[in-house]
């Protein structure tokens, strides 16, 4: 008799098999991996797999935005400052060449050592960061450069100054700016896709997710603190709201999953970067030939149907 874990894998496998996946991204890699898991069926509860992604997504050696930028983009020139009041180091913007074309890049940036972490504010942007992002988006639109965003943040910074400078409004306006763009847009969640801070730069024609990235409305600890009244129940919370890539794909929130090297992106950043580049290029090629109005209509139509209503 098949165990619960095996049933779950079979179910996932059949769902994935029936799904329209992006060329060069998850696709075959994920199917093969699942098949392999099915072949060596283990009794791991899926909650464990989910928690593994949470840990890998936050792994201190996981490649960050600038690690990918130096491997994927040629001639990257960083653009600093929101032209209003500050340069937020938790979010980087710039122009560079990707596969021969100039693109605008926007991405959250975490730091690796103590000093750098403080400098990058743990990847938690202030409103100034989102205003810098909007400035880069406007530049992309003005010059017809595709926009690529890399999402990796625990969330937007929850601080007094951030609120005073309009955190909520900045996140809303950044999304509104992405909805309106005439140029092709691709977003990829490369680590933590934390809530409003993530979606602020993740409203795109094609949204990808790395295999071990997480994307969620709230952190496991935050959810546990509220619903279980105990932040220590983070594993249970993660298992309940399912922030892993496969679930996000199944829910239609992301369009494709980018495979990672065995063991996670940090085990081989070069290989991870290569897979990411392939995924972004494949996604870009799908949408570049579309008319700009058509692309914008398609983008809006995609988000318009997100959510699940009861059928009564």
């Amino acid at each position, binding site marked *: 008799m098949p165990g619960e874990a095996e049933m779950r894998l079979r179910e996932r496998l059949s769902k994935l098999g029936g799904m329209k996946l992006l060329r060069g991204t998850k696709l075959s890699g994920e199917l093969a991996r699942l098949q392999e898991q099915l072949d060596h069926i283990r009794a791991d509860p899926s909650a464990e797999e989910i928690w593994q992604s949470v*840990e890998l997504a936050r792994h201190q050696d996981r490649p960050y935005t600038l690690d990918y930028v130096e491997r994927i983009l040629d001639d990257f020139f960083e653009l600093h400052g929101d032209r209003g009041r500050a340069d937020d180091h938790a979010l980087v913007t710039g122009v560079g060449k990707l596969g021969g074309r100039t693109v605008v890049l926007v991405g959250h940036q975490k730091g690796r050592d103590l000093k750098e972490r403080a400098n990058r504010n*743990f990847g938690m942007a202030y409103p100034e960061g989102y205003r810098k992002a909007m400035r880069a988006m406007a530049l992309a639109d003005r010059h017809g450069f595709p926009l690529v965003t890399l999402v990796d943040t*625990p*969330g*937007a910074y*929850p*601080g*007094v100054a*951030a*609120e005073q400078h*309009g*955190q*909520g*409004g900045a*996140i*809303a*306006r950044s*999304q*509104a700016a992405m*909805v309106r763009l005439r140029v092709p847009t691709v977003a990829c969640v490369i680590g933590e896709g*934390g*809530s*409003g801070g*993530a*979606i*602020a730069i993740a*409203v795109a024609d094609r949204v990808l997710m790395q295999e071990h990235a997480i*994307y*969620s*409305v*709230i*952190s*496991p*600890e*935050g959810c546990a*603190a*509220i*619903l*279980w009244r105990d*932040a*220590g129940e983070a594993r*249970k*919370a993660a298992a*309940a*709201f*399912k*922030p892993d890539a496969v*679930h*996000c794909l199944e*829910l239609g*929130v992301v369009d494709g999953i980018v495979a990672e090297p065995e063991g996670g992106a940090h085990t081989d950043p070069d290989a991870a970067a290569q897979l990411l580049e392939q995924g972004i290029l494949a996604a870009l090629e799908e949408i570049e030939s579309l008319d700009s109005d058509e692309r914008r209509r398609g983008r*809006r139509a995609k*988000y*318009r149907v*997100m*959510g*699940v*209503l*009861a*059928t009564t």
Partner: protein
Amino acid sequence: MSSGQGRVDVEVESKRPDEPSPGEAHPNTCRGCGSHYRDDELEQTLRVCPQCGHHFRVRARERIEQLADPGSFAEVDEELRSADPLSFFDLRPYTERLAEAEIETGLGDAIVCGSAKIEGEECQLAVMDFAFMGGSMGSVVGEKFARACERASSDGVALVSVSASGGARMQEGILALMQLPKSICAIDELHESGGALLSVLTHPTTGGVLASFASLGDVVVAEPGALMSFAGPRVVAQTTREKLPDDFGLAESNYRFGHLDAIVARSELRPTLGRLLRLFDKGRG
């Protein structure tokens, strides 16, 4: 837990209405001055304390009665209900919480939508209710808001939204977060059709609702004393260990920092909306 330190909820401060704990004030006792009122007295005064001007919370249907011309409101999409895409279970199943909220509030979800007239001006109304799971935004709130935008576009009228929300609804996971861009896409189409969004923020409007449609009104006003912050005061205090200013996140502070067009007392809300609707009326209807 080391990797968990400092990672906090930035979407949701409170998912349920304040539970009166023993020794805590009765809901009809003014938090501003301690005066106590009968329910019918508060109804008379639009739920504003006659002594000190404190604005009590208003349920969605009562709010509509306060704003719309008598008999003009026609509700739509009342039948929409949330599904449970994640089979979400914390200490209790999400489906149970939904059923309980419906019984307690008499509402299908945290927003009530329909067409209305305000001072004779036709408009669409979308009014949130904090009593339904803390006014949290899930698939139904997003869907009803988007449909309200679409009806405003096709009728050639403005949309008036009145928000009251603790943020995105955790129990719908990532799909709740997707209601932010969904509502924003709907506003984009409304704007493309020439329609306007008039956004009224009431206490509290936080998290995902502040970070989406509530902030994107062509005109954004708030009631006095309304909390309107992305992260709630508790989360900010815990994360940053900063001492919060007394007016942290309040409408008055937001007005000072330039995030609001006006603070409008409840008694002035209906005439203010009437005036704005006349100003934005392009004779498209």
